[in-house]
């Protein structure tokens, strides 16, 4: 086990070294992009997730309902995040027939509405299926909280 781990660490370090050597000429232009990810994540994204989790915990005390709302929020947020480059497109190539010519705002709105409709339907159908059983007979999933 120890030898395997040491082998992984050493060979991985060698690959990093090779990549670093390839990267060197581009580093003066690329370092801001390289550092931006971890900083934006640790200072903006993760705290926002934590605060959203805390707020959800206060607003929705029922853990089962909270899990559904958390799922809807997470999926919507990830879709919007992946949509940002399409909506923003700084310094773009021109829009051509068949490429980037959709209405992305409308598409995102429809997708997010569909997600929340799906969550509402799943929640209601689950409640109908469990109706009649004594409360607490199923283990409800719980939302992430900070």
């Amino acid at each position, binding site marked *: 086990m120890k030898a395997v781990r040491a082998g992984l660490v050493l060979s991985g370090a060698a690959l990093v070294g090779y990549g670093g050597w390839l990267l060197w000429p*581009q580093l003066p232009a*690329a370092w801001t992009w390289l550092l931006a*990810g971890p900083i934006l994540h640790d200072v903006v994204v993760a705290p926002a997730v934590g605060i959203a989790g805390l707020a959800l915990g206060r607003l929705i005390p029922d853990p089962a309902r909270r899990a559904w709302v958390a799922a809807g929020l997470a999926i919507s947020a990830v879709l919007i995040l992946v949509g940002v480059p*399409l909506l923003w497109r700084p310094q773009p190539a021109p829009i051509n027939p068949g490429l980037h010519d959709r209405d992305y705002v409308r598409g995102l709105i429809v997708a997010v509405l569909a997600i929340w409709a799906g969550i509402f339907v799943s929640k209601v159908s689950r409640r109908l299926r469990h109706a009649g059983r004594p409360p607490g007979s199923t283990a409800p999933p719980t939302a992430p909280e900070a």
Partner: protein
Amino acid sequence: MRLRPPRPEDFRSPAHAPAVSARIGLWLGVAFTVCFLTGLLSHAAQHPPGWFTWPTRPVSLYRITQSAHVLSGVAAIPLLLAKLWSVYPRLFIRPPLRPPAAALAHAAERLSILVLLCAAFFELASGLFNAVQSYPWRFFFVETHYAVGWIAAGALVVHIGVKLSTASAGLAERPDPRRRAFLRIAWLSTGAVVLATAGNAVPWLSRVSVLAWRSPGGPQGLPVNRTAAAAGIRVPADWRLAVAWPGGTAHLTLSQLTALRQHTATLPIACVEGWSASASWTGVRVTDLLAAVGAPTDRAVRVSSLERSGLYATSLLPSAHATDPLTLLALRVNGQTLSPDHGYPCRIIAPSRPGVLQTKWVTRLEVLV
């Protein structure tokens, strides 16, 4: 109430557990591995080293590998965010100050994770912007994305080496229902973004994929990546196709090309940006054309476009592609004469090639020595 920096034990979400981190990490590792390997393949297809020949079969090979590259990268975005939320409390561990060996090991591990995260975020963000043809940077994308791919792969191997026993213990542990609910949200988010972009490559998902950069439209049933106007193309009235080989040159008019035996092949245009579209192409086989003018038919061929500038004004058909019976100098697509945006008067279409190498507005073929 006094504010202080958080400590790991302040975080009480069920996401913060090795059973969760290990499971998401496993799938994130799968996504990164697929992305790295298909990325190497794409790089080799576009910048082939001397020992490498990109195969011509299956005809959709590049379509498959490049769709896998872009989709695994898209899938890695929610997986990376879920993984990082799972381990976020560890950011607030107070570093040990002694013994010095422990302090050093802690610092080295943090540094390796910083390198991994810089590289991972960079690859996903730059890859996504490049895929939607937006370039808000000053570095050269191909060189930098390729170099940082090696850094991400290496740093991931280091991370696996460091975390091997923690991860296997985490995988052996069965997550409780609250942790399973978090995992389910991570899988659902991943599925949602894959579905929202898979229509780039999968035609029947095109209407569902609201975030696909390729839309179902396009003239003659195909998207246009570069218009004739953008490329500054003006086809001269006396246009001839020049065919050159060591020992001779021939010139053919469009009607002479049309008079040669025509073949039809169904081949995809598959772009590095991860979108692809299949079409039915009709034209002259490159081998037939070379044989008709008396040029050798077993060599690599350099293809030049009417486009004067730009990285892809010329392309090289390796001998494997130049001799392939499916490689056409296409004059028609989907039953119609090529429109100016699709390469009128003629374009190269070869099986299993990156789209940028399927040169449009061809004006010259040169058989190499």
